[in-house]
């Protein structure tokens, strides 16, 4: 069997908050094959970015404990020194962030910001400016020569995100992490950027970790979907399987709360409550069940194993609560807090 591109096993992350370590990720297992697009979905605060930053090694080492194993092309990343990490960031893995304006240095020309991504790893890079223009071309910027001389504020949001993608691509990484790459853009631009990411992914056969809470984006882009709640993966499946046969109550709630499925006049389903604060997370339970008001205490408080159960072809779910789970129509459409 071919080696996995990314293989994360039992990844846990704890942040030091007010002097105490609190768990934000609990034993996350995720893998991505070459050329595969894995979508990681979940509400705000569920730990998606925390996972991405662990792969990038960008957590502040003084305030964060990362344990488990993250292998990229078979090489272990956890435990690398800062220096070793610097050599792998931007080379084997590139990252695209949510807000392209604040993610670019306001005082540096676009061309220089792209060039830096190359020269930082090889001072003797040949023909840097030509390669910068080539990259700008690759990400669909027509007026590359002029844009390279401009500062970020002079570009539109969509253009800036294209520039961010050019930076991420500079060294042709095997893995691209895109953390909500379209959330800050308006709808028409979103589609263009997604098309671009898809096109590049197919051309370069890169693996993508796509973080989003937009299920429309998932449906369009992903091969595989992992659903995260309160720092744990609760369900994983191929994209069609997940949309057609969602199992976990959280996945089903998310699908039900998807605004793109609402027809005019219908009320949008809102999942009651919010993701618990880190200090209130007891990872021995299925934490989402706390937000389902009609469930029995005994179900909500039952201990649940960390491991996911296989329920179909490449389809895994955590716990057993899904087996008897049904939406209680009385609460449908209500947003209980």
């Amino acid at each position, binding site marked *: 069997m071919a080696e996995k591109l990314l293989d994360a096993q039992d990844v846990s992350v704890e942040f030091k908050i007010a002097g105490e370590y609190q768990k934000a990720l609990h034993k996350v297992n995720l893998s991505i094959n070459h050329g595969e697009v894995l979508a990681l979905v979940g509400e705000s605060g569920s730990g998606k970015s925390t996972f991405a930053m662990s792969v990038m090694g960008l957590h502040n080492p003084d305030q964060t404990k990362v344990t488990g194993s993250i292998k990229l092309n078979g090489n272990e990343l956890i435990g690398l020194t800062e220096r070793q990490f*610097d*050599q792998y960031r*931007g080379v084997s893995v*590139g990252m695209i962030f949510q807000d392209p304006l604040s*993610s670019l*240095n*306001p*005082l540096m020309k676009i061309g220089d910001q792209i060039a830096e991504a190359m020269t930082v790893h090889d001072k003797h890079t040949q023909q840097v400016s030509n390669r910068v223009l080539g990259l700008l071309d690759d990400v669909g910027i027509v007026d590359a020569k002029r844009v390279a001389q401009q500062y970020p504020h002079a570009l539109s949001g969509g253009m800036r995100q294209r520039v961010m993608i050019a*930076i991420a691509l500079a060294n042709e990484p095997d893995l691209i992490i895109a953390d909500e790459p379209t959330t800050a853009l308006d709808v028409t631009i979103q589609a263009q950027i997604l098309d671009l990411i898809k096109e590049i992914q197919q051309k370069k056969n890169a693996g993508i970790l796509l973080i989003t809470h937009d299920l429309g984006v998932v449906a369009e882009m992903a091969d595989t979907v992992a659903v995260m709640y309160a720092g744990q993966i609760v369900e994983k499946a191929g994209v069609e399987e997940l949309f057609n046969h969602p199992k976990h109550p959280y996945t089903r709630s998310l699908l039900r709360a998807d605004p793109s499925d609402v027809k005019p006049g219908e009320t949008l389903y809102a999942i009651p409550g919010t993701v618990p604060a880190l200090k209130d997370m007891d990872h021995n339970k299925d934490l989402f069940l706390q937000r389902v008001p009609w469930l029995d205490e005994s179900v909500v408080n039952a201990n649940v194993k960390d491991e996911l159960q296989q329920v179909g072809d490449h389809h895994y779910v955590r716990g057993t609560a899904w087996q008897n789970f049904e939406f209680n129509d009385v609460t449908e459409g209500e947003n209980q807090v």
Partner: protein
Amino acid sequence: MWRTILRRVLIMIPQLFLVSILIFMLAQLMPGDPFYGNLNPNSDPATIARMRHAAGLDQPLYQQYIHWIDRVFHGDLGTSYAVNKGWTVTRIIASRLWPTISMGIIAAILTYVFAISEALLSARHENKTIDRILMVWNTITSAVPSFVFYFLMMILFVYLIPIFPASGTGIDDSQSFTTSFFSNLRYAFLPAFTIALFSTNSIFQYLRSNLLDQQAQDYVRTARAKGVTIKDVFRKHILRNAFLPIASGIGYSITGVLGGAMFAETIFGYPGIGALFVQALTSRDYTVITAVMLLQGFLALLGGLLSDVISAWVDPRIRVK
């Protein structure tokens, strides 16, 4: 760029007029008049009236203003009544200008050197001992009136350990320019150094929080994601962003030179414009007071202009507009 500068210079003209009117009114509000204290108390009221008439002091205010501003335009700032009786104010200011400029420049440079080094140290060791010490130091120096420190430094380095000259500017018109220049530096250094040492607070606080702010910006994360080391991110990205607002402040620091010089020059016995102003105030030398205030107003406007030009020059976001 040039258009920005031109526009700003043109705006300065009405601003200068406003400032001159303001200063004229302030001078009117001061108690007494130019003859106060200079006359024999037993003078005959008719004589006083004659003198007031000769000086134009019995005319309506607006006429007095027009007369005054007309003369100012022709380079005539009047004659001193008290500080250097009989001298033209222009001559007095000319003789006092260079000492203040030389001291002001040294003070400004040293202030930035001190404040920037302190801020870099503090930001690098946030919440560690050195940071705490610098925070406390800057709080103290900004809370205690500066003249207290000036006296201490004066006592320390002029009397107890006499390494600096006691008073004067070291300028001697009978000497060559270079001799005068270097001898002045010896006199200017202690007051300048003292001003700088105890006036770092605002730049320090501002730069320190800028540095800390910038470290948490998203573009820092992007640079790290490219593989740029922490050190290089600091050097190539954070520093420039954190320094930008400071650069534009350099213009405004001109504005503060005279204000800062008042106490320092008086205490260190360094006769520049600041000391002149104090002398003029205490002897109610109106023509000198208004002239120095006019100079200060002009410097303030010039400082604002310089700040805007520097901002437009260093910040690409402003440059375009």
